[in-house]
Every structure is written in C-alpha cells, then in structure tokens.
C-alpha cells in the first residue's frame, strides 16, 4: 500500500512537470504575447521599456527556467494584464466561490439524477421512463447560457423571487446568502441530472437481468430490499467513475454561469486569461487544475475498491 502511494506520487510529479513544460511551449508557439495588444499603440522606446518591465525581453529558454523555478516554490508570478493579480490570490479568493457553486450543483444534480435514474429503470417502458429520458435529452442538449438567461429573466426579472446577480461574500461565503445561489445552482445542475439519470438507468438495467437478482427475488426479498442491497450497489461502478470527475470539473468553475450571474469565480477568470494570453495565470491555473485532476483520478481508483471488492489496487494477489 505504502509503495503504491509513493509510486503514484512520483508519477504525479512527473506528469505535472510535463504538463507545465508543454503548456509553456504551447503558449510560446501561439503567435503574439500578453503585451502585444497593449504595446500596439506605443512608440518603440515605450514598448521596449514595457517588455523589459515584465521580463518578456529575455530569451525563451531563460524565461522557461525562471517559470519552472517559480513553479517549484509555488510562485507563478503576477498577471500580465491585471496588475497585482496572482495565482495564489485566485486560489484564495476565487476558487472557494466556484467550489461552492460547483458542489451545490453536483449535490443537487446528482441526487435528483440518481433518483430519476432509479425511477426510470424500475418503471421501464412506462410513461415515467419516457418522461425521464425525454427530460434528460432536453436538459443535456440545451446550453447553460440559454437556461441561465431564461431562469434569470423569469425568476429574477419578471417574478423577482431571487436576486438577478451576485454571490455571497465574507462570512456568508460557504453557508449563507442562499437566495443568490439558487438560480446559478439550478442552471448548472441540469447537466448532472441528465447525465446521472441516464447513467444509472443504463447500468441498473444491466444488473436487473443478472441471475443473482432473480435469486434474490425468488428468496422472497421485498422489491425495495432487492433494489437497495443487490441492484443499486452493483450498478454503482460507472457512477463512481464519473462522480469524482464531475466534482473536479465543477469546482473549476463554469464560464457561462459565472458570467451571466456575475459570480466572481475562477472559471470566468481562466477564460479571460486565455483570451488575453496572460502567461503566468494560464500556467498557474493549468498546473493547479492538472494537479486536482490527478488527485481525483487517484481517489477514483481508491473508490473502486470500496465499492467493488473484486478490484485490487496493487494488481497483485494478497
């Protein structure tokens, strides 16, 4: 077990190094630089000075070494576009905002999705089943932007039940200001409802036809007991595969939802940084998101073991 952890840790560091290197050189390969738009309307001497100030006048390899050194000590540098913005600041101020939004979306979306999935599987071929599937297709094919604007227009605009924009801050950051979070949470949770309803239904239908379910039923177990003890547990492997990934994705923010509801999260900022070719911020966010995904993949592997005793993490016999 200990060996396994060490091996995964080393793999993780190598992966992160490769990702950082690839990101750096890919960004270098893109034409233009973060200052080119700003420097476009500057006289030559002013332009030289500006590039020198941000260190962009140095040769590429020198900047690569500076960047990698910085990453090693957790210093990604300052934004080229927004004075004073740092990756550390983003993690501290913006990640919690996106994380709360994401967790609420996943919590609500996955709960409702799983319930609908069970319903669809147990009542397969009935109106309820068709409704759930039709709803899933609808929810998954309509983009966030449309849902967000629609909900906003109706519930914040016409009915005025909820605030149009905004997000809890300060002491309400995690548990408070719920009214601000309702519409953004709803907007985002639809995708999860659709995904998980279909996922669980498909997986349950596989299990329902297995012999051991028949055996369980023939033993005289009640319908609820059969579902709970035998069907659900065995249909959970695909869900477990998907869930940590959903969580990782959701806490990294959603550009559209954050932008519609003016939520100061990390998703909006990441897209802006990419548009601006804001090197230091892109590097920082990419490395941190990559680290997050790697950790999540690791957790997923551990979860398999918890759910399905047939899977072993070491791959060797006991």
């Amino acid at each position, binding site marked *: 077990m200990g060996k396994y952890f060490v091996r995964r840790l080393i793999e993780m560091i190598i992966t992160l190094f490769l990702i950082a290197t690839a990101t750096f050189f890919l960004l270098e390969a893109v034409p233009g630089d973060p200052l080119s738009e700003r420097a476009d309307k500057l006289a030559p001497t002013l332009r030289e000075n500006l590039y020198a100030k941000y260190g962009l006048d140095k040769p590429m390899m020198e900047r690569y070494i500076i960047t990698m050194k910085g990453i090693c000590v957790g210093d990604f540098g300052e934004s080229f576009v927004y004075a004073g913005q740092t990756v550390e600041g983003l993690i501290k101020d913006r990640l919690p905002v996106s994380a709360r939004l994401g967790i609420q979306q996943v919590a609500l979306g996955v709960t409702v999705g799983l319930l609908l999935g069970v319903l669809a599987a147990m009542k397969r071929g009935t109106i309820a089943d068709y409704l759930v599937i039709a709803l899933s297709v609808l929810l998954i094919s309509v983009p966030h932007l449309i849902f967000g604007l629609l909900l906003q227009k109706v519930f914040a605009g016409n009915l005025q039940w909820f605030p*149009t924009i905004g997000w809890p801050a300060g002491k309400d950051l995690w548990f408070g200001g719920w009214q601000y979070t309702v519409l953004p949470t709803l907007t985002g949770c639809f995708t999860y409802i659709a995904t998980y309803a279909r996922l669980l239904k498909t997986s349950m239908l596989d299990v329902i036809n297995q012999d051991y379910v028949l055996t369980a039923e023939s033993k005289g177990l009640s319908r609820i007991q059969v579902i709970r003890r035998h069907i659900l547990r065995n249909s959970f492997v695909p869900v477990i595969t998907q869930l940590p990934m959903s969580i990782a994705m959701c806490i990294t923010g959603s550009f559209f939802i954050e932008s519609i509801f003016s939520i100061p999260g990390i998703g909006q900022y990441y897209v802006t940084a990419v548009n601006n070719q804001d090197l230091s911020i892109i590097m920082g966010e990419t490395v941190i998101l990559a680290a997050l995904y790697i950790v999540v993949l690791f957790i997923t592997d551990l979860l398999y073991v918890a759910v399905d005793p047939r899977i072993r993490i070491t791959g060797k016999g006991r």
Partner: protein
Amino acid sequence: MNKFKKCMALVLTGAMAFSLLAGCGGDGGTQVSTAGGNGSTSGQQINLRAATFGNNYDVQDMGWRWMMAECYEGLMRNVADENGDKFEFAGAESMDVSDDGLVYTFHLRENAKWSDGEPVTAHDYEYAWKRLLNPANAYDYASFIFNVVGAEEYYNGTGSVDDVAVKATDDYTFEVTLKVADPTFQSKLVATPLYPTREDIAEAAGDNWGKDWTLCVYNGPFAMTALVEDNSMTWTKNEYYWNAENVKLEQINWYCVPENATAATMFDNGQLDVLDASGEYIAKYEQKAENGELQSMDVEYPSTGMLCFDHKNGGLSGLMKNVNIRKAISYSIDREEMVSAVYGRYSAAYGLVSPAITFDGESYRSLAGDVIKTEYDSYAGDSAKLKELFQKGLDELGVTTPMSDIKLTLLSYGSTTENQLEREYIQQSLQQNLGITVELNTVGDSEMFIAKRDALDFDIFVSSWSSDYNDPMDFLNILTTGTYSSYGLYSNTEYDNMANSLTGVQDSAVRLETYKNMENKLLVEDCAVAPIYYADKHFYYQNWVQDFRTSSFGASQELYIAYIDGK
C-alpha cells in the same frame, strides 16, 4: 483491507449526506455584499453596470479611466452635454500661459483635499509627473509629457529626474516648462496620467501601489469604499472633496455584469439606473425612450473605424500599392448601409478625424467637412465605374490578370456577431462591386491578429483608432512615418512635413488649415486608409436620473452633478 473499505464507505456516506444538506438551500438572509439595492440609507444612490472591472488604482497607468475620473481629480475635468465636450478647471483654479506658449503656471485650489483630509498640493503633481516619466515604471502614457523640458531625456536614461521642468514653486503653484509651444498640451490635462499622486502613500505601498484599493487615497468627488472583484464595487461621496456640497449622490453601486442580456434584465427591473447599450438593445430601448419610459443620450465617441492597406509590399496580391485600386475598394463599401446593417449604431465616416473632436470649441468635422464624400458619391453603387477604376489601377501597375482572377485577403479577428457581419459585409461588397474574390483570413484573438498583421500577411484589414486627447492631431498622427506599425505602414514625406511644420505653431488658423490639408492628402490624394464609421455611445437611463453627463476623455458616466429625483 476490510477496515479500509469500511472507512471509504463512511467517507462516501458522509459526502452524500453533506451534499444533500448543501443542496437543500434556505435563506441565510444575512448581509451579502452584492446586488439587490437593499440597505439604502438615502435615496441618493445610483446603480451602474460595467462589463468588466479593472484592478488598477494607479492614475499614471490610466488603466481604468471611468473609475479614476470620478474617484480622483486632475487639473481639469472633461464633461459633455448635448452641446459637446468642454473642459472645466478642477484641481486648478486658473492657469497662466507665457506669451511664447512655453511656461504653464497652474494655480491650484487651496481647498482641494485627499480623502484622508490632507491637502492636495503642487508637490503631489510634481511627484506624479516625475513618476510617470520614470523608465522603471514603464507607463504607457509617459510620452504624453515628452514635450516637457528634460522629460524625454530622463525617460531614455540620458537625463536626470532633477532636470525635468515640472516644479512645485510653492504648495499651490505648479509650473511646467515645455520644449516647444504646443496648443494640444492643454487638451492632455484631463488625462488621468497627469493626475496628482501622494508621495507618502505611494511610496509606503511600494510594489503594491495601484494594485490594492485599500492602500489608496482619493481626491475626487467619490472614494472607493468596497470591492468584490468581478462582482461589485461601492463608491461613497468623498466628504473632503472641495466641491462636496454640490455633489448630490451619496453612494454609487457598480455591478460587474459581463452579459448584455443580464444587464438588460436588470435595467428593465430598475436594478440598474443607466445602460450603455449596443446592437439589438438600441432598437428596443429607443422605442421606450420615445414613449417617455426612459431617457436617452447619444454621444459621439472619439473613435473611427477604417480599412487599412499594406503600403509596404502592396499586400499579398501586391496591388495595394496603387491608389486607384485602394479607392475602388474604399468606394465599393456603402457606409450608410454598413453602419445600419452591421453595427446598428455609429455613423458613416467620410473623414478620419471623429466628429467628437473639437477645435476651438467647434466640432472639427463641421469645420473640415466630409472630405471624401464628393468623390465617393461619384462612384457609389456604380459597379461599372468601380471596376473601371480598379482596372485603371491594374493597368498602371502593368498587371494583366483579369479582375475575375484577382484574390485579396482580408485579415480580421473576433467571433461576435458584429465581427462576423463586418467582415462578411466587406467581402460581399467588394466581390459584388468589383467582381474580384475576397478571402477571409480570420484569427481567434487580437494577439494572433497583431502577429499576422506585423508579418504583413494580408491585403486589407479592419482597424480603428480611439483618441487619447481632444485634438485632430491625435488622429492624423497615426499615419505619420514611424509612429505606429498598426495602420498599414503608410509613409509619405510630404505628409510628415506637414505634421512637422506644426511644431511650435500656436496660430489656430494655421493649424486648422494644415489639418485640413493633411486629411485631404491622406484620404483624397492617397486613400491611405478607408474610413468606415465614426463610433458613438448610446446611454439609456431611468427617468429618475437627473443631470447625467458623459464625456469623451474623462469619465464615460460622469456623476459628480447627477442626482436621483422621483424614484
């Protein structure tokens, strides 16, 4: 192993339980520093929208003009109403200019104060101007005062800061000496890079200066009091402001709303008091304004959109060298139709200098007229004549390729509907009127666009210039040799000479005549660029907003005299 599994199961259950709890919602109903317009202590509050927030409180950097012009104040203030832009004394009470136009003496207002109660003195101006010129700071607008004696030398490292001729002769007298007389100098005084900065405060903040609003002091009508990045911001009336008794608004709430649709919903609900509308929203609100449900204000904005040509190599086709070909391209575009079909706002441009630019108090355009209109009208919509003009250019170049085989490349970027309509409109216009092929080379963002443009990978591209100060020269100067590489590298000695001939000239009649000649040379003789539109801004505001102003070179939404009545 079994134990481990149990642990994991527990963790899972816990996570699920937490999820359920979190999903339930409820109403905390506590103070939330966000939208809603609650907790108002006085009716004198206004709610405004910005599509993006900056994060820059350093006036020398001019990162964030709409904020800086309200929370800070310089020697003069720029405001505009129906009658156009005008400058008013603000930090200065009066100004003396020596007869030779070289020495400017500003008499500062003795009752001007910073938000911590300290007086605004001439030393704050001296420090700020020298700070602007410090090469280590690499400020974009340092060149604004290169005409000050010793300034350019200091910036380039050949002179000392002590030789820069900006001086606080006493606490309330600020003296500036120019190298050569320059009437445009005055129009730069409203620009935020020339605003004062407190030495003690800025030095104490060190590297964090301008990056953290809590470290700043303000000398404008309002002061920043709260900020949630990319979300909301509050300005409160600055009680120390010299003219505070005439500032009626107590609080200004800014919301960062990137989506136009969201902003429109908020404006419809009365959650926003002012909306800076564009595109399809203009038609919607214009109707409401006509019905008296809203007030509206259309203002010219000092920016002109234009087609630029490759003057260095003549473009990928090599044809852009010929003036008749450039003219045939320029006159193939129906500007009136384009502004209404593509932009849904703006006005057709037949000159380079925007109508928002004034000269001796009058719109420069009314003085100079529509320079290319006559020639444009003689070709407009007449495909045969346009083809003839283009063919004439081909003959002059000795090109024998038939026009139907000619291919031009239009370089552009941007993915908004407007960007797409713009390039397609130009492509269609040229193809239909000239019978040539126009290929679109569209790149993702401005950085890539600049890289392609600088590699001369185009025949034509769309660009625009937004002016930094109120003088025709700021427009005409973009095409003098070596100033910018971003307008097609036009270079003409005669044109440069005309621009240089104005150095030190104070006579406004001579200046006006030269400006007219320059614009004529540029557009009628050479067709160096093809102006397409003059930009404008459409503001809609609620009926309860009174005395709302705007300006071209100061705050886009000027609030120091605005107030709320009848809400």
